[in-house]
């Protein structure tokens, strides 16, 4: 019995290790290449560890036009998207989870419908409309589009989370004198927080990685992917590694901070 248990445990660890390597090895390789001297990037067969670390490529990349401002733009857009998505997505998820209203099913389907239209198809009408509305080349404009992209997922995940929060707790709160809104704010929302952290993470990543809409809707106020993607595709190999590595880092940092909320949620599920 014990043996089977430990073997199972070993298998789980092995699987976890594989998944971790699957994600980490490419990041490691990109990182190493980003700090390799220029000529070593081209060497064939490639050596994994560079002979010495070089900041030359990274420095040129960071100093080149628009990289730092577009990084700030990206962070700003991602945070705006995050706030907008949570403000709209959390109550929407709560409504779908708690209330039986006419057209609930079509509403749920309708949320997904927005994902059916590829952005490439909408590009020109979208840009034209944004120009007319004065949203073109603004960070708010990009954040609005990203919110529209992230909302379907946000609502679906939020629905799942609020279903998991027992209705009885809210009822108890109301018996004790809370209003409907008060019960939501004081009971349901705090309990759903870890799940909403996952929503936040998801939204952040969607916004951070999105390049198409950000590319076409901005000229001067570009987000990082919009700014560097075309440039890097046409640039020498070592700049691609530097740019790639630089793109990954902020998202990793964000994950690192929000991670504990996630663990909290998973921990809670396991106990149940």
């Amino acid at each position, binding site marked *: 019995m014990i043996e089977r248990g430990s073997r199972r445990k070993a298998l789980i660890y092995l699987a976890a290790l594989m998944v971790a390597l699957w994600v980490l090895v490419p990041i490691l390789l990109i990182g190493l290449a980003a700090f390799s001297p*220029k*000529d070593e990037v*081209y*060497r*064939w067969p490639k050596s994994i560890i560079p002979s010495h670390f070089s900041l030359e490529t990274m420095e*040129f*990349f960071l100093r*080149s*036009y628009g990289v730092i*401002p577009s990084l*700030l*733009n990206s*962070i*700003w857009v991602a945070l705006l998207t995050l706030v907008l998505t949570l403000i709209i997505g959390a109550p929407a998820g709560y409504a779908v989870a708690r209330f039986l209203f006419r057209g609930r099913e079509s509403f749920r389907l309708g949320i997904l419908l927005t994902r059916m239209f590829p952005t490439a198809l909408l*590009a*020109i009408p*979208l*840009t*034209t409309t944004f*120009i*007319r509305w004065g949203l*073109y*080349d603004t*960070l708010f404009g990009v954040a609005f589009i990203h919110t529209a992209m992230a909302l379907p997922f946000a609502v679906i995940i939020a629905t799942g989370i609020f279903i998991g929060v027992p209705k009885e707790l809210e009822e108890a709160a109301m018996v004790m004198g809370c209003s409907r809104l008060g019960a939501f704010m004081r009971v349901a929302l705090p309990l759903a927080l870890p799940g909403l952290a996952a929503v936040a993470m998801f939204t952040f990543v969607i916004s951070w990685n999105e390049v198409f809409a950000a*590319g*076409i809707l901005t*000229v*001067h*106020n570009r987000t990082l992917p919009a700014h560097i*993607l*075309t*440039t*890097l*595709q*046409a*640039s*020498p*190999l070592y*700049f691609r590694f530097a740019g790639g590595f630089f793109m990954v880092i902020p998202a990793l940092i964000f994950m690192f901070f929000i991670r504990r909320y996630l663990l909290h949620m998973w921990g809670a599920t396991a106990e149940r």
Partner: protein
Amino acid sequence: MNGQKVVIALLVCTVVASGSEKITFMSTQLVPIAEAEWVRSELLPRFTKETGIDVVFVGAGYGEFADRLVAEYKAGKGTIALAGGLHGDYTPLVRTLTDLSKEFADLQALGDRTFIPAFVELGRLNKIQAYIPWTQGTYLMVVNKMALDYLPEGVDIRALTYDDLLAWAKNIYEATGDKKLGIPAGPRSLLHRFVHGYLYPSFTGYQVIKFDSPEAIKMWRFVKELWQYVNPAVATWDAMDTPLLSGEVWIAWDHGARLKQAIIERPDDFIAIPAPAGPRGRGIITVLAGLAIPKASPNPEAATRLIEFLTRPQTQVIILKGVGFFPVVKEAIGTAPEGPLKVLADGVMAQASSKDLITAFIPSGLGTRSGEFSKIYRDTFVEIVVKRRPIREVLSRQGRLLKRLFQETGAPYPPPDESR
């Protein structure tokens, strides 16, 4: 909250900092990071110093470039004052562009620059002067000096034929066991240009007219033979500079801009040579980039001044020396850059002065369907060389598609076909 304020302040600063005139120049050319930096720090400041007009240079991929021009045109309000793109970038966008006939006449009247007439003609689309020629480029070969040891006896490297190329690649393979010939065949590569602008004119004398002919059948048999010595990894390469630098390829054909980096990194290891000649001559493509003013341009006057600056012979020489893009005005042609770019320029000059040259142009007049032209040649290559389908059958099927494309669009056959 503080962070947000900082960001807003930064944004406001960048907008307000220059109270003077400011225009945006969007281009599908000079996009790579080092070139874009050069444009921003070396080229455009000269213009700003002279005119007081600030220029924001924005690099864009073709899709983004096209979508944006169309969207700004539809909205009737734009941010892009001046556009820089390839001939092929503009063909589907003519309705969004201003007719520059008058501006062109004004440039001519200055008397200091003579545009190559064929280029000016190419810029006339749908009866308007859609763009003004800016720079030209071409495709050629770059060779690792190590490959020279295996060059077949008596072969003049500046007058290579396709048979010589085959023998050369075969020699290398037999001596080293490696396939060191590289012709880019990745998803974003320019393989189709090799087929319609290099192989076809060299073997049949035409790009389109003899698509499905006995000469073409012979040509495809040759390509299949040649491909035995092409590095199989080419299917993953879009540009040949990287494999040249890594030594996986010793002899490479590609667009000058996609070979340049190899020479810049290690100028002593490589030479640039003309593309090979076939039985009919040395087929090569000249690619043209031009400057256009969108109908929605917020400042056409400033854009016109920038065009005047960029097509000035002195500026054309500066561009050649800085990034290796070749001039389109006669006064600037013939000057050679120094340093690593000289290696590339020597190859281009040698190619341009070959006696057996057949210059091919990318077709104009296909409008939105110009992508189909490329696809027909690419598909033909894949079917014959990769899938090994019967040559005759593939050619007659693809040939019908090609014929229909020109019939339906009413486009003229591209040179050299129309000039013969």
